[in-house]
């Protein structure tokens, strides 16, 4: 009797661990497949690949369609991440260090691009940007991506500002620091990891954005995701996998540097 109840407990534990193992495989399988395919020697998607080659990485830099779209994406990504980080950080700081009626509403407004389905944003922007001359050029794409990235910056920075000890700022102000210096010397170093991670988030958001870009880009100014999209729907070639692998390495690097920054600040604060 006792033994049976114990083994029933064990049954549930086994089931749980089985589901977990499945989930782990399920979550990483696509990534592994992409990694492997990017080194495939076959000209189309066969798995497992027949042999090893670097041709898709080569293709990425030699094929003008791919290379140009990659350049376009980077041209969008850099101004977008800077704009979104500056606007988002300023807004998050302003929200955290002021009090007025309707603060919740303003916060909601700042986060709303994250909540509204992207397809709605895409079509709305498509309609209006055509009229404003923001269709088919870099500026339009930068503005659109900035809108989509701001919520991520606001969220990460607000989270960090809520955690840091407000008395540190009060102390600096009573010690005679001007608000600007207080921000530069006290607040900013403390929220730096969050700002950095917000910036990385906005880079990833911009680089990975497809739906809005699809509507407001033209074959001349075409970010890499749109190029991938048309490629996937047409004749698929493993260059996509090569880009994806590069992107993942970039994300991993970004993640690690953000962790390192956070650890450094934490260490300094602890000391």
């Amino acid at each position: 009797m006792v033994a049976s109840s114990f083994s029933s407990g064990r049954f549930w534990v086994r089931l749980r661990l089985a589901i977990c193992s499945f989930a782990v495989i399920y979550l990483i399988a696509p990534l592994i497949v992409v990694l492997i395919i990017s080194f495939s020697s076959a000209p189309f998607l066969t798995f497992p690949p027949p042999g090893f080659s670097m041709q898709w990485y080569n293709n990425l830099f030699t094929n003008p369609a791919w290379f140009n779209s990659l350049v376009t994406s980077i041209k969008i990504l850099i101004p977008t991440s800077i704009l979104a980080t500056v606007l988002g950080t300023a807004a998050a700081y302003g929200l955290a260090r002021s009090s007025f009626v309707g603060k919740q509403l303003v916060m909601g407004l700042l986060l709303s691009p994250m909540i509204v389905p992207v397809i709605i944003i895409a079509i709305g922007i498509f309609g209006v940007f055509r009229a404003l001359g923001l269709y088919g050029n870099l500026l339009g794409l930068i503005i659109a991506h900035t809108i989509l990235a701001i919520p991520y910056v606001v969220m990460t920075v607000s989270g960090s500002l809520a955690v840091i000890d407000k008395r540190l700022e009060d102390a600096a102000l009573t010690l005679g620091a001007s608000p600007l210096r207080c921000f530069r010397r006290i607040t900013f170093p403390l929220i730096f990891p969050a700002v950095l991670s917000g910036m990385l988030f906005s880079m990833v958001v911009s680089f990975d954005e497809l739906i809005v870009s699809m509507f407001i880009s033209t074959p001349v100014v075409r970010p890499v995701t749109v190029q991938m999209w048309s490629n996937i729907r047409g004749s698929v070639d493993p260059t996509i996998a090569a880009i994806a692998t590069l992107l993942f390495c970039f994300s991993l690097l970004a993640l690690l540097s953000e962790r390192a920054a956070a650890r450094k600040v934490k260490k300094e604060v602890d000391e």
Partner: protein
Amino acid sequence: MNLVAKNPMNKNAWLIVPAIVVILCFFIYPVSWLLIDSFARPKWGIQNYEVVLGRFVYLKVLLNTFTISAGTTFWCAVIGYPVAYTMAHCSKRTRRLLIFVVLIPFWTSLLVRTFAWMVLLQKTGLINQTLLTLGVIAEPIALIYNRIGVYIGMVQVLLPFLIFPLYSVMLRIDRNYSFAAATLGAPPVRNFFRIYLPLTLPGLVSGGTLVFVSSLGYYITPALLGGPADLMIAQLIERQISTSGNWGMAGALAVLLLVVTAICLGVVHRIIGVKTAWGR
């Protein structure tokens, strides 16, 4: 409270203005136009809504959207709950590993992941080949361009959104509740269903809502992994514009999607507010 008086502090509020202006001009304004279009194009009235809610083809898409979102939420819960549980109750090293694995989808391009599924799920793909070699199936099964493909793709994308809220709730649950129930005579399974599950329900509900609401507006995954019968509302909106330039209809569908999203978020907000009332 803050040592500094209120007035100088409110200078900080000006820092919000640039971001708000950008959002108002390039987000609120375009979206509002679209919503207005639903009543204004091709002529003023509610004719677009009559079409959306009156024609079988549109209702079918709405139903699709709803069932696919519900199914995705269900499967996310079934897979995500045990994962969150393991994350909350395991060694530090295993936890770090699991968090990393669960975060991987966040760091891989959505488009690329969907593409990887296309490779894995096709008739000559890895999964079919493996099953064939193992003799589980006699001929390739259709895993893509149908509902199965949509689920496989969407659950993978949205799983982290369910796991993390749940995990943070589970971390905060006092082990003594389960201990107490055990000393009071509850065997493990009843202990779980009477004590642990109800206590983690707020996390499950908020994570589930996040998944459900996100699924409603999904475009890429169903477009690439689904078949013609799996058309969802986001694809329908896209088609209104790209094939027929029907702004009024697109607007009406957008309004519908927004309203459903808002209702879900609002209702769940209420429920969780009530649910957590007994917590504190």
